[in-house]
């Protein structure tokens, strides 16, 4: 905790402002990803998941598709949690 933080009106956790901050942090990073991704991404995700499920018996939420941007390079990350 910084020196100045000590003087900040520290809101108690559990208060709505804390909740607002947490929600915003998640939302904003999600928005930023979405804004930078092509509009076909949701459909592509859906189809990819469908194809995988044709071969492997996994739950819908066991497959995650993420598009990441690192500098000028775009990375499509496909994550499948296979059943034991």
């Amino acid at each position: 905790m910084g020196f100045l933080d000590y003087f900040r009106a520290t809101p108690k956790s559990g208060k709505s402002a804390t909740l607002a901050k947490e929600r915003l942090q998640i939302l904003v990073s999600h928005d930023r990803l979405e804004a930078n991704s092509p509009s076909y991404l949701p459909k592509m995700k859906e189809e990819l998941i469908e194809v995988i499920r044709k071969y492997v018996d996994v739950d819908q939420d066991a497959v995650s598709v993420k598009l990441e941007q690192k500098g000028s390079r775009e990375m499509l990350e496909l994550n499948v949690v296979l059943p034991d």
Partner: protein
Amino acid sequence: MKGHRSAVIDFDVGLRNLDLIMGCERRVVYDFVNVINGEANLNQALIRDKRSDNLYVLPASQTRDKHALTQEGVGRVLEELSEDFEYVICDSPAGIEHGATMAMYFADDAIVVTNPEVSSVRDSDRMLGILASKSRRAENNEEPIKEYLLLSRYSPERVKEGEMLHVEDVKEILALQLLGVVPESKAVLTASNSGVPVILDKEGDAGKAYMDVVERYLGEDLPHRFIEIQKKKLFGRLFGR
């Protein structure tokens, strides 16, 4: 008020209001779209502020045609204004539609006005994304638009109670330099009711906060005010002021 020749343009096509806030609504003859279409020249359309010799207002058009502002036309008018004015202030409408994109496209600096509320902060972040990608500076690979945060309707009491986002939290989420905090104030409505900009209210907190914003923007290094709860001064209480 600081002696710089300035023009303010209302970009809210279809919902003209800046003239009302500035108290010059009865002197509107021509508007921004008239100038773009060559139906009037800038000298005819610009309204000189009654209180400030260096300030001029270019009102928005009331047309329902959303695309009345063409990029080429806006660029032309801004170019012409910049020959005669030190500062051209583009008042952007809310949202990410045409009017807003036109207001920001040619910008050098951007002041993002946010309320300490989730929806407002989120929208501001979206606007920042557009500023960084869809402006002329971005398209020409020039130095990016300088972005500043102006937090309005702030209530230190509610922040203390944990009911309102702290200014530091908003700053952190948006990763912006803070230009100023304007406290929630009754003077703002009084000012708009009477068509007198609140910055002219030299006694009130909101007026002072806006003056600080201007001075900071012009390069002065002022400490931020109105972030802490203002206690009644002891002397003030003792002497019943």
